[in-house]
């Protein structure tokens, strides 16, 4: 028994344990997703989040300790974002042809996201910095943090809202767009990237390469849109 505890205290000090556990939690999430016949509600990110959180709770491990290992996975978000240049380049011709409907969808999708989040939040009794923290939630997290700070929100709360938005978007997008009768993968992907940034984009890539490429461009466009428009929006309405 003491031996097991020794091994545990040795492993829990280094990054190997939580890095490995993160990858296996994701593989379990992915396995569940595949077993369900790729049902969007069985979201691999959500399953991994729940499994890992439960495990941290059970082993009395702090998030800081966990993140020392998991940061290596987290770090890869940077180069992965750069790698989105490749599907962008592959689909360039079609992206160029769709420039006008894309910009229209960006304006409508981006504006609806901000206005409806503020309106619903306000109607449910949220005030002040809590409402402001909601405004940039559709943007990718580094942009959302900067914008939240600039408009007087709580950046740490915004990060959580950004992630939840991504997971919600990844889960609802397929059934929602099916119900609306929208079949074109360009519009489906684009709207998902605008509303649900990288997690939505990851979901779009699971469905179709075209949807993924357009989701990637939607994410980038809404990062720019949010950075430019959110401060103006706050100035006008608050």
């Amino acid at each position, binding site marked *: 028994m003491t031996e097991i505890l020794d091994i545990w205290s040795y492993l829990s000090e280094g990054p190997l344990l939580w890095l490995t556990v993160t990858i296996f939690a994701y593989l379990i999430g992915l396995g569940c997703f595949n077993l369900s016949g790729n049902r969007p509600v069985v979201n691999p*990110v959500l399953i991994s989040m729940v499994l890992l959180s439960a495990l941290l709770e059970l082993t009395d491990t702090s998030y800081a300790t966990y993140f020392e290992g998991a940061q290596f*996975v987290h770090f*890869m978000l940077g180069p992965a974002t750069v790698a989105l240049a490749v599907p962008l380049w592959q689909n360039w011709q079609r992206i160029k042809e769709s420039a006008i*409907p*894309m910009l229209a*969808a960006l304006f409508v999708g981006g504006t609806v996201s901000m206005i409806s989040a503020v309106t619903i939040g306000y109607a*449910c009794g949220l005030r002040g910095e809590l409402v402001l923290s909601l405004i940039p939630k559709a943007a990718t997290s580094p942009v959302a943090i900067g914008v939240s700070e600039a408009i007087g929100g709580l950046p740490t709360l915004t990060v959580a809202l950004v992630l939840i938005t991504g997971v*919600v978007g990844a889960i609802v997008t397929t059934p929602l767009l099916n119900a609306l009768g929208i079949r074109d993968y*360009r519009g489906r992907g684009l709207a*998902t990237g605008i509303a649900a940034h990288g997690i939505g984009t990851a979901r779009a890539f699971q469905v179709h390469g075209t949807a993924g490429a357009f989701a990637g461009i939607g994410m980038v466009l809404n990062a720019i849109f949010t950075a430019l428009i959110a401060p103006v929006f706050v100035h006008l309405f608050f």
Partner: protein
Amino acid sequence: MIFHFGLFLGFQLIGEILARILSLSLPGPVIGMILLAALLLLQPRIGHAIEKTAGGFLSHLSLLFVPAGVGVVQYFDQMSEIGLPLAAAVIGSTVLSIGAGALTFKYVNRFRGVRDETPE
């Protein structure tokens, strides 16, 4: 493979440096991506060389959000009072935004006389 990865990291680095120097509000990786896309349009040869690596990398994009996602759950204790209104705002606005964006794309295309691409 390692060259390809080095290219992604290199463009991220350039993006981070430019973001600081020009004090842009866009994150470094997004700037790096825009620059790399520009390079690929000028030099398709490089694009063909890296497309396989990029495809493999992006097919597991979901995994990369897991560590940050676990951080959210740490919030739940503090969220008992504001959690429900925040959830309503996040879910409601995400549904409305996806629907509004996709419908806009569809009807602007229809207005221009561009046909839907029906999935094969």
